[in-house]
């Protein structure tokens, strides 16, 4: 069986973002495998360990994405495919670009992050599903294979509540927090990853969406701190007073 995780590389969430020339500037930023995609990587490694087969990483992006692929390989995935483009492409176009590669790989299932923390998009998984003509389960919180990989039983979040579904494979799944606890890439894993294959495929696609401008409006907060360690009651009273009289919100 073959389990694919589609991943993206994003700036570290904790880092402060910088705008230069109307665009978020990545220079000097720590770039990491997106956390939501990491749950996908952990899941395909787990599935491979449990059911046998291959865990494959697929990424579409500039050359620097290779670091994120290596991180996934260091976690335990077997090999990678890197569709290389320096262009910034929207999720629909990316799904178009990924379709052939994913179809040729003919996996049992494809995982991708429920939402990635740079473009805040939830579209990649569903668009890939449409491209391949497969079902998609979004916000997946648990997954088990059934019937020798013919089906999967999955739990996923809805707007209000959750649902357990049975999906015919192959299918696309997008991740949700709680799906698993990603393992660290280990030191031996990092050393082994050096030798694992990353197949590079240069692509040329034109996106459908143009980003005109990015700005940060950091809301200047009052940052008033009240000490509630010695007299919690007084602190609570003060907070309520401030919210009522100063902020006028209660």
């Amino acid at each position, binding site marked *: 069986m073959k389990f694919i995780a589609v991943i993206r590389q994003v700036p570290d969430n904790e880092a402060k973002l910088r705008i230069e020339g109307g665009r978020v500037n990545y220079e000097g930023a720590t770039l990491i495998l997106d956390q939501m995609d990491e749950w996908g990587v952990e899941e395909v490694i787990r599935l491979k360990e449990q059911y046998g087969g291959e865990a494959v990483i697929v990424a579409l992006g500039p050359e620097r994405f290779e670091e994120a692929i290596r991180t996934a390989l260091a976690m335990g995935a077997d090999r990678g495919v890197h569709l290389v483009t320096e262009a910034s492409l929207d999720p629909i176009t990316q799904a178009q670009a990924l379709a052939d590669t994913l179809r040729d790989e003919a996996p049992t299932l494809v995982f991708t992050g429920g939402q990635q923390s740079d473009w805040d998009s939830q579209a990649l998984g569903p668009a890939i599903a449409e491209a391949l003509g497969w079902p998609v389960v979004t916000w997946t919180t648990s997954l088990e294979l059934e019937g020798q990989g013919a089906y999967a039983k999955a739990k996923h979040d*809805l707007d209000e509540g959750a649902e357990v579904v049975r999906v015919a494979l192959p299918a696309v799944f997008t991740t949700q927090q709680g799906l698993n606890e990603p393992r660290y890439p280990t030191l031996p894993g990092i050393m082994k990853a050096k030798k694992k294959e990353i197949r590079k495929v240069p692509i040329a696609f034109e996106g459908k*969406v143009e980003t005109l401008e990015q700005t940060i409006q950091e809301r200047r*907060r009052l940052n008033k701190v009240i000490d509630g360690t010695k007299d919690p009651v007084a602190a*609570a009273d003060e907070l309520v007073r401030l919210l009522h009289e100063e902020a006028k919100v209660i």
Partner: protein
Amino acid sequence: MILVVLEHDGQRLRKGALEAITRARQLNAIAGSVAGVLIGENLAAVAEEAKRYVQALYLAEVGPYTAEGWAAAAYAAQQKAGAQVVVATGSRQGRSWTPRLAYRMGAALLEDTLETGTDGAKVIATRYSFLNRVTEKQSAALPVVFTVKPNTTPLAEPLGSEGTVETLSVELPAVGVEVMERVVEQKKGVSLAEATIVVTGGRGLGSPQAFAQVEELADLLGGAVGATRAVVDAGWRPYGEQVGQTGKTVQPNVYIALAVSGAVQHQAGMNKSKYIAAVNKDPEAPIFKVADYGVVGDVHQVLPALIEAAKKLKD
């Protein structure tokens, strides 16, 4: 024609549908009339309301929700209406089927937009990115599909006339997803998305029982209860209450975070609140960086005191 996919609850149009209609009408530089499509089952009742808002209304009786079904029905409507722009609500559901539609149409997808407009023959949109920290302006040539971020747009008024109603026959794809069990949470009290006051509890509260006090405070203030992912994962609160990157985004007048450490992913769900107040025993907790009012202290002592203070305020 601009096509709007109208979200409804089986009886009435949802607020999101009325916001979407407003947005569609704003694009009159591209097309002068707005069509709507209702998707689901037993649509007759909602159709009565819906036809008063659009020039043309399509009905697609396809049964209970599936992403493939909704995308297929929306596509059928789009084709029938010859619409170059399709508008839908940016609910989780909406954001799950609209990419399928966009792909099939070969259209540009603009997600969870705050504002939309036109620039010549292009659609321009404003939206958030980087965990709601960056505002970006995007443009796309037709055809375009976009979703509307809830609670950003005034609700449309009825037109004063009734649109034509047409039933669509939709070729449903074989759906590979079989629903085995659905846990739908009963919404109690004020809904998060509409609340002007949100009181959120984090894992530091220690137990599900402690949330009774969170509920009490929310009730007294007339607000909704929120939760962090950790709390939802622990089974203390329902999924629908989760605020954050992987949950809901809220924009109340005041967001009160109790024993919430304030990781960036949680902040993404509330950093646009007008005011943020926090209670946490760790003065280094990230939440204090984004709080207007922060109380450093033990939430188990501060929360009961907040309840008392709120009671006094009411009187």
